[in-house]
């Protein structure tokens, strides 16, 4: 494997070296042309000098990659110098609403000005040597496009991972409703990872609040299948082991029917229709009753209102 790679690079070496020398020699001109291309023009709107500077850096990086002979390698060391800059440019385009497809097209548009300049270098633009150099430069520009896309995609993945984590934290608050009573309003689909987070935060809250009653409200859970029901039952069982009684509330009529149709046995779980019913149950079990205030004088009562 190693041998074949070095052979390949040796074969392309003359053309690659020529391209490298060309990119070094004509860096200024290429940068000037690129500054007018859509990608640089739209990213660096404030000053053209900045766009030219960025173009110079990219051209220098391409020259370094060409000199190393690794035209098709997106991990080539030469790209490292501009990877951050390319990432920022791609991100800036994405912020203005350009889809990855559009960014790819804009990067592809950088090839034409460069190859034009390269052709002009040769006495015979259609000669074998010129063609070989153009092919090498085209390959290099293709790799640049891949580098930009790769940077874009990995940046997107980072964002998704961070948001997923945030969603887990944000979407599972444990609320203290009353002395010794905590509730978790569940919003959204309950998968294994989330139910784990719910279980952990609920159990921690039971310890922290010294809760006797824990209410799991599933009003915001769109569907309940056997897997979700299993997660609920696990959470209920874990809360019971901690000495708290768990109540599942917010079961909508459609969900109640689904549960029955699926044949899921929630017999071991205490259920109530709404969060209010669950709270009323928890309060009554603690000997607390909520009643309207009664004043001795009806007139005073009216006066308050």
């Amino acid at each position, binding site marked *: 494997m190693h041998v074949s790679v070095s052979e390949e690079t040796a074969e392309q070496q003359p053309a690659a070296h020529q391209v490298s020398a060309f990119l070094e020699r004509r860096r200024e001109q290429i940068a000037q042309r690129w500054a007018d291309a859509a990608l640089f023009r739209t990213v660096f709107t404030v000053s053209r000098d900045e766009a030219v500077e960025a173009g110079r850096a990219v051209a220098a990086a391409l020259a370094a990659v060409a000199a190393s002979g690794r035209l098709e390698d997106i991990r080539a060391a030469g790209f490292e110098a501009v990877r951050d800059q390319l990432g920022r440019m791609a991100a800036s385009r994405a912020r203005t609403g350009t889809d990855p497809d559009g960014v790819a097209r804009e990067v592809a548009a950088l090839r034409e000005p460069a190859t034009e300049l390269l052709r002009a270098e040769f006495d015979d633009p259609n000669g074998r040597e010129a063609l070989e150099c153009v092919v090498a430069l085209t390959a290099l520009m293709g790799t640049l496009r891949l580098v930009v896309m790769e940077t874009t995609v990995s940046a997107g993945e980072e964002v998704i991972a961070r948001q997923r984590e945030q969603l887990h934290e944000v979407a599972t608050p444990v609320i203290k409703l009353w002395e010794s009573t905590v509730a978790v309003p569940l919003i959204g689909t309950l998968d294994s990872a989330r139910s784990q987070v719910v*279980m*952990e935060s609920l*159990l*921690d809250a*039971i*310890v922290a609040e*010294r*809760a*006797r009653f824990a209410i799991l409200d599933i009003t915001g859970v769109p569907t309940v299948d056997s897997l979700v029901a299993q997660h609920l039952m*696990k*959470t209920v*069982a*874990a*809360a*019971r*082991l*901690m*000495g*708290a*009684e768990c109540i599942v509330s917010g079961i909508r009529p459609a969900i109640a029917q689904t549960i029955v149709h699926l044949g899921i046995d929630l017999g*071991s*779980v*205490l259920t109530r229709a709404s969060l209010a019913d669950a709270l009323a149950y928890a309060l009554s*079990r603690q*000997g607390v009753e909520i009643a309207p205030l009664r004043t001795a004088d009806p007139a005073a009562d009216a006066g308050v209102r």
Partner: protein
Amino acid sequence: MTGAAGPPLAGATGGYGFTVPVLRLGDVLLVTLQGELHDGMAEQLQHDITSRIAGSRVTGVVIDISGVDIVDSFLGRVLAEIAAGAGLLAARTVLAGMRPAVAITLVELGLTLPGLRTALDVERAMELLTGDPRDGERSP
């Protein structure tokens, strides 16, 4: 009446040189488990508890496992057996102080310990056994 007049501390050594203390507080026996419970100790503890209940007028047993890091299927079975044995002698058993991590592990293992009463800590467990009788019947 060995429980009342006898030594306040009955030990379960099981040949490990380590004792599980069984304390009597009024009508309740308090057992505090620490660290690991070996087979021999578990057997000795079961024997100690049942004989203490039989020999005195104890109506409840509180098993405090707040110092236990790992509850496996063996310990789960031992606890269930102690509760069943105490139940035959008309004493109620309450498992107190389970840690969140232990509860999650037990549930993942499918050991939900049905039939065992649970409480957040020893204080709540004592409340459960001596206080409001309505609170003692915890069933859905």
